[in-house]
């Protein structure tokens, strides 16, 4: 049963320096209660996708060229702003990357959580504040701190507040955009563990955007690897981590430093990601790929299912 499905989504950013192709026909499906990891390097289009789902793409530059985002039988891209407002926060919530900047510095954390509640539930201010206190307790912050301002919290606690805001209305789906990037490793583990247990309690689906493969291994059911605005490999965590087929995925895994290997230089994938303003005919990865053939440069590979639930966008299928 698919719950959120993205079909052939193409997004461009129209800037003065040219048209940036941020997403080039992304298709994804998310099943209720499942966690999907979205992995890729900076600029691959991860956050663009999250913003598309939320409908908060920058209006002036962001242009959706084609595609559909279906959430519970509703095409989000065709919804009016009013409908979207009632979906955002209540049905789909988002956790932002940087807790330092995603909280309003002049409102207390309690007010900010209460506001998310008030936007969707017709309840009084007092009730919303009570809910804010409950949410703070839920994420492990004492309810007494509800009247404090964001700058009085540590980074990890701010991220918990951001999570509390996102979960305040029990959303059916949570988009976590690199929720742990700004945190140190111990807090990262705490936050992830907390998100997992909350997710189980509330049966939320989650789209976890990250570039940390360890985080994916621990938290996700399925993984999509995104490169230059395209999904290049998609499958269960086992499929992608143990039987990866796409050269890019292989490159990603081989660049993880190994503690027991005695090497002078870390492995990396040669070259840089394709200039996103270019239109390319062939495979977008072929310039960096050691298996690339003539075919790769001329034809664009499609995402092909190679075993049940595991798809790869590559002619060579190594």
């Amino acid at each position, binding site marked *: 049963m698919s719950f959120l499905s993205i079909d052939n989504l193409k997004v461009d950013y129209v800037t003065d320096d040219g048209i940036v192709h941020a997403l080039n026909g992304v298709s994804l499906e998310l099943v209720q209660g499942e966690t999907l990891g979205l992995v890729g390097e900076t600029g691959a289009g991860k956050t663009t996708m999250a913003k598309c789902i*939320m409908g*908060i793409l920058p209006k*002036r530059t962001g242009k959706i060229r084609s595609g559909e985002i279906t959430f519970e039988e509703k095409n989000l891209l065709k919804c009016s702003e009013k409908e979207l*407002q*009632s*979906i*955002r*926060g*209540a049905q789909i*919530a*988002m956790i*932002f*990357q*940087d807790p330092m*900047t*995603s*909280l*309003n*510095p*002049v*409102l207390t954390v309690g007010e900010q959580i209460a*506001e*998310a509640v008030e*936007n*969707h539930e017709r309840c009084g201010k007092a009730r919303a504040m009570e809910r804010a206190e409950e949410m703070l307790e839920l994420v*492990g*912050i*004492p309810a*007494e*701190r*509800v*009247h*404090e*301002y964001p*700058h*009085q919290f540590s980074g990890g*606690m701010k991220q918990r507040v*951001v999570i509390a*805001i*996102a979960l*305040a*209305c029990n959303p059916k789906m949570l988009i976590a955009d690199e929720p742990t990037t700004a945190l140190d490793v111990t807090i990262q583990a705490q936050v992830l563990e907390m998100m997992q247990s909350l997710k189980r309690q509330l049966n939320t689906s989650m789209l976890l955007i990250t570039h940390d493969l360890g985080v994916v291994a621990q938290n996700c059911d399925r993984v999509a690897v995104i490169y230059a605005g395209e999904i290049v490999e998609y499958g269960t965590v086992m499929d992608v981590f143990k039987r990866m087929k796409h050269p890019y995925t292989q490159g990603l895994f081989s660049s993880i430093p190994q503690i027991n290997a005695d090497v002078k230089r870390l492995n990396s994938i040669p070259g840089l990601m394709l200039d996103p303003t270019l239109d390319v005919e062939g495979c977008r990865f072929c310039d960096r790929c050691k298996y690339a053939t003539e075919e790769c440069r001329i034809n664009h590979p499609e995402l092909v299912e190679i075993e049940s639930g595991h798809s790869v966008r590559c002619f060579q299928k190594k």
Partner: protein
Amino acid sequence: MNEKQTGNIVTNGINSRSLWAEAWLRFKRNRVAVAGLIFVAFLIVVSIATLVLDLVTSNEIYNAYVVKQNLSLKLAPPSAEHVFGCDEYGRDILFRLIWGTRYSLFIGVVSIAIALVGGGILGSIAGFYGGKVDQMIMRVMDVFLSIPSMVMAIAIVSALGTGMTNLLFSIAVPQIPRLARIVRASVMSVKDREFVEAARSVGAGDFEIILKYIIPNALSPIIVQASLSVGAAILSIAGLSFLGIGVQPPAPEWGSILNAARTYMRDAWHISVIPGLMIMITVLSLNVAGDGLRDALDPKLKN
């Protein structure tokens, strides 16, 4: 969890106060701002007191001391009897200053409040929506800016006629584009911050975002500019009064005393210096009080 305990220790006591109570606590620490606020409060009390006195005595004091001419005391220098001396018609400057407070302060503050509402709404709409809306609003503002404020005030008063409401309006309108520009710039710098995006993603509407997220974060430069503009407004009233379309004589408006004094500057320094000092101290007090208010309202400077 560990943080729970530390949290408890950190938080004891500061939770119960409201935003304003806390702002007041922080405001109190700034001595200069408190002094400014006390002076402004004093002026407000004085203007209310004179209003009440006039009502009770049916303008007796006003007629006897403030507007009654006594040419034997023409340009009398400060003395024990007339602490600040007398003006060109022999009227006591001290009385005129006290009774003039309400005109200057009231017109200055109210006209800027009107301008702030107008400029605030236009500027935040322009800054928030950008694009065509912004262009339309700001080009109209540019047209207004290209007319010198005094000329526009004169035009408004001549078109609508003299009177308190029209005077307020004529001083407020030229200030609108200035404030709108500042509000717009300030809003633009805040609107792309991540917490605005975050607010949108929990389902907040435009109106709510502007009111709760953008304006409070964009407030500091606006408060400072508004408190500076009050001074400018008091001076424009003076200018209009000088031209005979502001506060009508013999009402003792500070600016009109100052203007009238120009002719006698060489013979009677006190008529120009003392109202000038009053205007300066008032504007300064408003400024430091506004500055302190800004700092007090900013939760980041809390501890």
